[in-house]
């Protein structure tokens, strides 16, 4: 896959939406339906991405050490740990489970 093409598209697309927000007149996107959808779209994408990057390798669904790592991150979030600590918990637990042969 051509990584540079993907990078170029992402650079242009992500900058364009940021700029659009600052430039468009407020009324253009302020319709309630658009606002609700805009709030829910990241929820759907983040949930799907979290699940995929935890429970899959390529085209296969797998259950491995990453699941334990993510459970640790979830626990850290419940305990209101700061962002960095949440990520660190996932990394350390995943590495630990792998070291134990998981």
């Amino acid at each position, binding site marked *: *896959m051509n*990584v*540079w093409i*993907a*990078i170029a*598209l*992402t*650079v242009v*697309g*992500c*900058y364009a*939406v*940021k*700029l*659009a*927000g*600052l*430039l468009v007149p407020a009324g253009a*996107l302020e319709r309630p*339906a658009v606002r609700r959808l*805009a*709030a*829910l*779209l*990241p*929820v*759907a*994408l*983040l*949930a*799907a*991405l*979290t*699940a*995929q990057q*935890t*429970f*899959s390798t*390529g*085209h*296969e*669904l797998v259950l491995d*050490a990453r699941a334990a790592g*993510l459970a640790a*991150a*979830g626990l850290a*979030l419940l305990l209101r740990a700061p*962002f*960095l600590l*949440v*990520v660190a*918990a*996932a*990394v*350390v*637990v*995943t*590495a*630990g489970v*792998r070291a134990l042969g998981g």
Partner: protein
Amino acid sequence: MVRQESPGGVGERTRAAVVRDALGVGVAVGLSGFAFGVTAAGAGISVLQACVLSLLVFTGASQFALVGAVAAGGNPFTAAAGAFFLGTRNAFYGLRLSQLLALPKALRPFAAHWVIDETTAVALAQPDRRSARLGFTVTGLSLYLLWNLTTLLGALGAEALGDTSAWGLDAAGPAVFLALLAPMLKTATERAVAALALVLGLGLLPVLPAGLPVLVAALAAPAVLWLKGRRS
């Protein structure tokens, strides 16, 4: 929420307090660029490509999504589409910020690059326009500098480490997504969307080309809204 700008001093926060808040967010999140650099290297992206992403895309979730899609071997268009749709929330931040910050037209193209979760959160938390502008600028600057520096260090470090999965670093990406997602799950609607997206994302993974399941899972948002509309 946001109060109107007060004339001269009354109700304005001290500049030091605003700077302290802004730096707290900028430094904490800026350091997670390290996780991005490592994740990017683990996905088989070069140090240069990782740095270009942090310099020019500068919106964390989209960057993680893109390198995840690259690692999964999707085509560049579906990979970029996933990153783009995640980035659309920044347009709505921009809408709120443009009213709050009232930036001069000439500055907007530059300020736009810093319109992200963290700068918006800090700016919206301020009681007046001057504090909001200061909070936005300090958060943006500190986060931008650190995010790019730690991306470079993370990517170089991961190359030195070799096998990043032995260090558990492949769990950094999903943990970042989860940390972004958790505060969004306020009501039953958000939870329903997340659950449906999870099922679609995992269920379609074995059968659809890489990158597509995430885009189909995004349809969970309009689907749940439509169902809610039908029931009420």
